């Protein structure tokens, strides 16, 4: 492998890391949200009179769960568009 200057190396590592981070950071909340929806649907079919309460609670907890994916996305955006490490070399 040819000799790389540090800026290129950091860019390469940043891109690969962002890809892996967004993969794991969206995979896990998606699985967990799917389970939450599944349980809420089971509850709604079992007790249709509680559907309104369940829907509100489901939406709130989905928002709280989804915020982890949003944090990962923001970290990836910072890494790609405003990488603090690159300023040391350029």
């Amino acid at each position: 492998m040819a000799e790389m200057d540090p800026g290129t190396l950091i860019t390469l590592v940043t891109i690969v890391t962002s890809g892996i981070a967004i993969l794991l950071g969206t995979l896990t909340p998606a699985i967990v949200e799917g389970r939450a929806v599944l349980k809420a649907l089971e509850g709604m079919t079992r007790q249709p009179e509680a559907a309104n309460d369940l829907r509100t609670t489901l939406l709130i907890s989905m928002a709280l769960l989804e915020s982890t994916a949003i944090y990962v996305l923001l970290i990836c955006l910072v890494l790609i568009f405003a990488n603090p490490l690159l300023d040391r070399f350029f």
Partner: protein
Amino acid sequence: MEGFFPQVVFTIFGIPIRDTVVSTWIMMVIIVGAAAMIGRRQPAALEMLVDFLIDTVSSVMGRPAEPYLSFLGALAIFIAVANVIGIVPLVVSPTRDINTPLALALVVFFSVYYFGIRAKGVIGFFKDMASPIFMLPMELISHISRTLSLTLRLFGNIISTELIVAVVFALVPLIAPLPLVAFSMLTGVLQAYIFTVLAAVYIVAGLEAGEPVSAQSSQGVSSQ
């Protein structure tokens, strides 16, 4: 990607004004004008909106919505219009800039203290919050962390959908971005709903801190 992030348009007395601030001004004019016009011609449309807000807020808080409706309703309408107005050409969403969600989350942060102190008095509110006393630091940390999470949730959702639209527009400029624009509108309205419901949950958690858990309040999700 140049021009995607907020830019300084002009400066007033040395204070830089970004394009998101200008579109906030446009939005304020639109909201006030629409409210005045619809209220005079067709009050039924406003009644539906207010009924929906009352239903949602009172079912989430488990108590009459009257004292909180003006605050939460204004929050919901502002965020919904702010998220959706990004589809108008030459106008950007104010929530694309992280300072707008931060300001809204700070308003929610202080409103928890305002409503709590108004209901219980200064001493009663802080005594309920610090019972037992070692819970006080955790309560304060959770107040700060949920302010931060409200900010990042709103900002991240809006910036992600707009980024997706921008990327697809760069690839296929013709018809392809339209479904994603519709999806971003849906996300924006949903985020306004979620922000408002979470603000109601936080306010009612501040009001009911220290009280024994009743059956009515047990449907609220614990604060993050």
